[in-house]
């Protein structure tokens, strides 16, 4: 259960389309905050631009709706000045690894103690259903009307390769898992990425014969394979499947802590 303490309930209902998965992810985040008993006065949510960025308006704490793709760097500046703030990012796929791809990989590398929740619906929703760097090959969008010719990014694998120290992937179907990984990501000291595969019935679904929200959610779920079973699959069986679960967890010096150690050293304290 999410405590209403964490939400600006007066701003509900939210702006997302009927059947959209973003409300479920946002709900899971509020549940994770509740279960972690975070102090809302020392927690901040920073969103980018796009449908996902709108989540920032809903949390009853310090919140920032930034520019497109840059939420992670706004948060980096904030965290360095306010190391005691717990900062969660609500990013979309286009936001995080399209326009913000450069910032994203450097945030992974830098390992600042932030938690990025990536609402991955494989499309640009807010602007009307354009192709995203996460849109699967051959899938349609308003700007790939004959099917996408580009190869998509695998966000979780990108995050691991770039140096993120906690990476998990799940779907908006797996509500308890979303909460579990969000809690672990927030508790993790370092840059944590929780990619949530979700559905956009309004655009992705309508353009790809998956109009029904539940059917679409179910289709996403069926594509996934838990990491525990992944190893047993042959290369052939893995094609068109997506591995989910806790994919990566590593201890590495956290950047803000390292910087404050440097300050202490320089000041001889």
């Amino acid at each position, binding site marked *: 259960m999410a405590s209403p303490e964490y939400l600006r309930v007066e701003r509900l209902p939210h702006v997302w389309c009927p059947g959209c998965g973003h409300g479920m992810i946002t709900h899971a985040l509020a549940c994770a905050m509740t279960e972690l008993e975070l102090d809302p006065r020392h927690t901040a949510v920073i969103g980018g631009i796009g449908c996902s960025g709108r989540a920032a308006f809903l949390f009853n704490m310090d919140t*920032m709706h930034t520019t497109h793709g840059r939420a992670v760097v706004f948060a980096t*500046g904030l*965290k360095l000045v306010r190391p005691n703030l717990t900062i969660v990012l609500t990013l979309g796929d286009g936001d995080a690894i399209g326009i913000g791809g450069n910032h994203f990989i450097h945030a992974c590398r830098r390992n600042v103690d932030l938690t990025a929740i990536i609402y991955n619906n494989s499309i640009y929703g807010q602007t009307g259903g354009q192709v995203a760097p996460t849109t699967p090959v051959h899938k349609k969008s308003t700007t790939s009307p004959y099917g996408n010719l580009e190869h998509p990014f695998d966000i979780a694998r990108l995050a691991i390769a770039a140096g993120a120290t906690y990476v998990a992937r799940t779907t908006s179907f797996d509500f308890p898992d979303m909460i579990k990984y969000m809690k672990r990501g927030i508790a993790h000291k370092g840059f944590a990425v929780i990619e949530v595969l979700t559905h956009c019935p309004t655009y992705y679904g309508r353009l790809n014969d998956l109009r029904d929200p539940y059917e679409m959610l179910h289709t996403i779920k069926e594509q996934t394979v838990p990491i525990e079973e992944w190893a047993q699959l042959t290369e052939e069986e893995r094609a068109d499947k997506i591995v989910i679960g806790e994919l990566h967890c590593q201890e590495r010096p956290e950047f803000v802590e390292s910087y404050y150690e*440097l300050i202490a050293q320089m000041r001889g304290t």
Partner: protein
Amino acid sequence: MREQELVQGNEACARGAIYAGCRFFAGYPITPSSEIMEYLARELPKVGGVCLQMEDEIASISAVIGASWGGAKAMTATSGPGFSLMQESIGYAAMTETPCVIVDAQRGGPSTGQPTKVSQGDVMQARWGTHGDHPIIVLTASWVREVFEMTVHAFNLSEKYRVPVILLLDEILAHLRENVILPEPGELEVVERRRPERLEGFKPFSNEMMLCFGEGGRVMVTGMSHDELGFPAQGKKAAEQLQRILTKIESRAEELALYRGRFLDDADAVIISYGITSRAVEEAVRLLRADGLAVGWLDLKTLWPFPERLVRSCTERAQYVLVPELNWGQLVREVERVVGGRVEHLGRLDGYLITPDEIARRVQERCNPLTPLLPSQGRGDGGEGETV
């Protein structure tokens, strides 16, 4: 008393920032501003501050805005190409009334241009670079000690009015080393950010007091048009907020105007200059006065908001106004708008300074004897100046 020391312009800027209380810097290497970041990377940790080298200039200004909302006085420094990249977030800072300082050490442009050569080509970009009507303050400097003072001043104005302040330096001043005595602690005023006395009922976007993150205020910050509480607003509410943030700077144009005036009382001809070009003008005015010409000089430190009333009053009796600047004609447009057809531009695009001789010669040609000046004359002579 402090000793005289040999200080580079970029170093003076960095030291001025620390003096002003800057405790966060984020930047990306670019000629001719890199020494600012190099100095701060060494010195900021010693005073408890943070200096970050980011992945690009977009990240730099964005991190600065994040840090400012964390409560720190924050700055970034760059040059032309990086300044272009920063424009979107400069607009975000203006829209969200975020105090921050952006230093642009101007180099020859457009594009990569002449990275190691001087220019004053970013005057209009500093004012209008980001989209939409927005408030901004733009300062400049001509001497190394002045770079220090203007950096402090940039922070003071930014914190006082909750507005991004751009400090326009240039390649020569950034790299110039001069013998200076820099201000002692306490010598210059340092303005601190005003905080609301109580959280209850405080509207974070209604005045120049600022409630930062981590202070229990549950602040909402967005670059969307917003109401006094920071939540999205449209129509009349959006217009009212925008008018408030525009007016708070525009209505103070005269009080924000920093300048030096010389020999203006009896001037038949007035030279209006700013930044590095003012150094040549100072010598030119000396030469012209020695020749018996009644030449006055207005040296502007505040470029935006443009000090209209000041420029109008200083040029009232002048029959000739010359605006030398290292570009194809930028601030001269504002001067023309205010003064009218008596204005001529003297420009240069080859990456060298306008010399005192060039300026003095131009004034002599026009004023001795006083020849009529066509309004269209004067533009387009950039790059033809002799290289000395």
